[in-house]
């Protein structure tokens, strides 16, 4: 039985109003309208199999909140999870700005009506430009993975526009496996990804192998993460860029934005394209929903032409000291030239760009320095404390790390899964289990801290692990 009702989101569900509008159209029933244009055999005659509506806001809220309350959040348990999604302090004004109805519900209005949005986005790209020491910064992409994918294809296009046939992308064997598989599928018809091994002892890229591959002359780009997915710095960044350029390839790097207050931008270490994620800059964890990517380069035409996303350009006006903005050179995007575009493009993550702008404006250079410093100090403390435990080796490569560290449980006689189960009982989310992503490493976990991680929380983790590993409590 169909039950229509006056719905608060549908003013014209009021029968009298509906009738006025129908009269205007000289029809008796809405059905007459659509039955005149949709063939009978395509009309769905049944009632959609959906639950009956929850009519009041209170009941809806109670229902949905009831489901969400089954989750346990990182505010309730201590989390040592990272792996591409990071819990940081989110300044209250980030939430305040991105929940403003004006920003929250705006879309693709342009230069004059959405002037404030345009300025906020340009300020975001401008501040990212400072953080990255890059002159060109794109509109936000879906996530780091998308920015890596597009950076790879940009490199191939830059070569091909110059008449060079180069289609191999060299990537570190230790790279983020999800992003690797994303990029592999995304680039398959134009490029081939090839892994460069790491030196088993140090975890760093094997430069001899890199050079051997570069010598073939078919390499379009060399990619590295800094820090690596496994948390340690690629200390040979400059040398990788030098070799890459020596053999005519393009150097692409993915830095961790939260490190850039103390760590040099890859742009200043020879990288040509820099890409990554801005989730750490003011986005809550949101079960992985706060990711948003960026792509940046030097102000070189052959690079700029290959960006596949919107770019917001600044424009002078007829009034001094007043500027406007517009989405520019849209022929690069599928919105502008359909199949002739560089790549496809769609609605991505504009609100997170604006939020990251608020974050960077609030943090300033000192905040970003202190952020990097605090994370490194906390992580170093955790490494030292974990290595007090027999059977556990934190930072087995012995490198310098940022935010995350590999913890080797192979000598503990226990699996990471077993250990994490016990930690969970103690209200701790242990580090990410890497045994499936990197089976060659056996039982390793990826532990993450941030400026929010307290000494007490790290001490509690160490105590719990001591009991599990040394006393065999399972």
């Amino acid at each position: 039985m169909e039950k229509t009702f006056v719905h608060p989101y549908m003013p014209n569900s009021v029968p009298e109003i509906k009738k006025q509008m129908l009269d205007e159209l000289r029809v008796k029933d809405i059905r007459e309208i659509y039955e005149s244009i949709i063939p009978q055999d395509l009309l769905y005659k049944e009632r959609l199999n959906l639950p009956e509506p929850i009519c009041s806001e209170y009941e809806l809220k109670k229902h949905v909140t009831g489901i969400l309350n089954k989750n346990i959040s990182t505010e309730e348990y201590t989390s040592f999870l990272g792996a591409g999604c990071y819990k940081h302090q989110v300044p209250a004004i980030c939430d305040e700005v991105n929940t403003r109805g004006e920003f929250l519900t705006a879309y693709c209005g342009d230069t004059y009506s959405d002037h404030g949005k345009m300025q906020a986005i340009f300020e975001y790209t401008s501040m990212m430009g400072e953080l990255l020491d890059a002159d060109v910064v794109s509109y936000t992409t879906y996530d780091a993975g998308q920015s890596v994918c597009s950076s790879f294809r940009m490199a191939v296009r830059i070569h091909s526009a110059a008449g060079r046939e180069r289609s191999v992308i060299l990537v570190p064997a230790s790279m983020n496996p999800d992003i690797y598989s994303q990029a592999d599928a995304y680039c398959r018809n134009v490029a081939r990804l090839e892994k460069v091994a790491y030196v088993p002892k140090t975890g760093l890229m094997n430069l001899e192998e890199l050079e051997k591959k570069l010598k073939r002359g078919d390499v379009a780009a060399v990619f590295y993460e800094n820090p690596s997915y496994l948390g340690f710095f690629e200390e040979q960044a400059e040398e990788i860029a030098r070799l890459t350029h020596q053999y005519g390839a393009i150097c692409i790097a993915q830095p961790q934005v939260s490190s850039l207050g103390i760590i040099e931008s890859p742009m200043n270490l020879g990288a040509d394209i820099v890409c990554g994620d801005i989730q750490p800059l003011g986005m809550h964890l949101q079960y992985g929903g706060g990711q948003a990517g960026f792509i940046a380069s030097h102000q070189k035409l052959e690079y700029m032409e290959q960006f596949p996303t919107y770019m917001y350009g600044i424009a002078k006006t007829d009034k001094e000291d007043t500027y406007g903005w517009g989405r520019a050179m849209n022929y690069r995007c599928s919105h502008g030239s359909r199949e002739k575009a560089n790549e496809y493009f769609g609605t991505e993550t504009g609100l997170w760009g604006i939020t990251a702008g608020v974050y960077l404006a609030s943090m300033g250079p000192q905040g970003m320095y202190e952020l990097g410093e605090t994370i490194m100090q906390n992580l170093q403390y955790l490494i030292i404390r974990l290595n007090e435990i027999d059977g556990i080796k934190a930072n087995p490569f012995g490198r310098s790390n940022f935010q995350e560290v590999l913890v080797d449980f192979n000598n503990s006689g226990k699996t990471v899964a077993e250990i994490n189960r016990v930690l969970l009982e103690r209200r701790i989310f242990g580090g990410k289990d890497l045994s499936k992503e990197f089976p060659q490493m056996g039982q390793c976990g990826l532990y993450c801290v941030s400026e929010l991680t307290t000494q007490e929380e790290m001490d509690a983790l160490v105590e719990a692990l001591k009991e599990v590993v040394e006393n065999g409590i399972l």
Partner: protein
Amino acid sequence: MGYYKQNRDFHEARWDEPFIMEMGNPGERGVLIPRASKEVREISGDVSELVPKGLRRKKAPVLPEVSQMQVLRHYMRLSQETIGTDLNIDIGLGTCTMKYSPKVHEQLVRTEKFQEIHPCQDESTVQGILEIMYKDAEYLKAISGMDKVSLQPAGGSQAIFANVQTIRAYFEDKGEGEQRNEIITTILSHPANPGTAATLGYKVITLYPDENGLPDIEALKTAVSRHTAALMITNPEDTGIYNDRIRQFVDIVHEAGGLCVYDQANLNGVFGLTRARDAGFDMCHYNLHKSFSSPHGCQGPGAGAQCVSEELARYVAAPTVEFDGDKYYLDYQRPDSIGKLRAFYGVPSVLIRAYAYIRSMGADGMKQIAELSILNNNYLIKKLLEIKGLSMPFARGRFRMEQARLSWQELTEETGVTTDDICRRIVDYGFQDYFTSHHPRVLPEPFTPEPVETYSKDDMDEYVAAFAAIAREAYTNPELVKGAPYKAALGARIDEECLTDWSRFATTWRAYRKL
């Protein structure tokens, strides 16, 4: 009662804000962060010892140094210079489905029980969000008639991309990957269709409208061959004309061995009235930030849903969310899957809102959305077409679905005022500018309104009155319209060449200063 303002003395906020980069003074702080404890610092040692030498940042980033109140005030002002759906009768952004985004949904997603959960947490600790994702997929199966749904796409275009990846995987499995290298679409389907197809290396064949404004079926018959991988089509297209031969289109492509993909980014006019699967389509996709009410957020984050038939179920993006009768879990055991599209599992905040939306509507509410958006649209068209100089090309006298492409051609010919001029002028009346058309503009001087079900009759009457007033201006004082806007946030006209000449183009303040 039923009153609407016809002489609204509107002026958008105009703060003429400086750049954040130029505000504040050295030493000012916008926020402080937690620091490592004394003991941690002592044990860890000096940070300069921890950072490898070659990687130490030599020059601090030149970020603003501004106190908190001043940062907030700056962004509040910028927000006031932005016109979201919360503020205006946002009928103009046709194809974008600018419906009301319920505020109760915003309260739902703000809970720490969602904001602060990490995607790598043990599944036992995220049963709530997994339940919502699972049920979303079940509901979308009912709405589309499809058999399998993946909620991983981070937006509508990425969902279309997932569908093209699925086409590729399907034909590669059949050993026809090389042979089937063409994708057919229509010029009035969304550009992401040819865009995604070309991204994956397909040759794109584009059908143009026939004299009735529908994609040319004869051209389709000529286009299909053993090379056809798929048809990717919208229905209704941007014109709002329902393609009543859609099943024939599907049959023609199926007979040639190709797949059929329905772009349902905008589902608003067909909720509960027709289903993609029932028209024979193998796949479709939804934009959950459009028909399912999530706010558009200055262009994202959105979310997409990839919906496919049983035959294609094994290819959808992994992981999917499954239920074993006892608990919800992420299923990675999908060897034929096109794999990962986006980090983690899509955009869960949008999935929560979509869930709440479906639950607050039910089957009849969903159908009512479609019915009222169709009624609104045809009412609006009727009223708009009373305006001199505005016409609706194609299929005269035929009802439209939820949107329509109109044309100011006559007005332009008679007054010299173009659709772009009117698009700027409408801002002076307190409305967001409007969507003209995707590129290329197949119809001259286009204007594409979409009065979704959340707009009232009074809203539409006010909207029409504003355009009627602008048309009168065009016929009496065209320079007034051409010089617009006057009351928008930006109070000066930009030098367009800064956006078309690479040598004057800058995407950052630092680059601009070097020009």
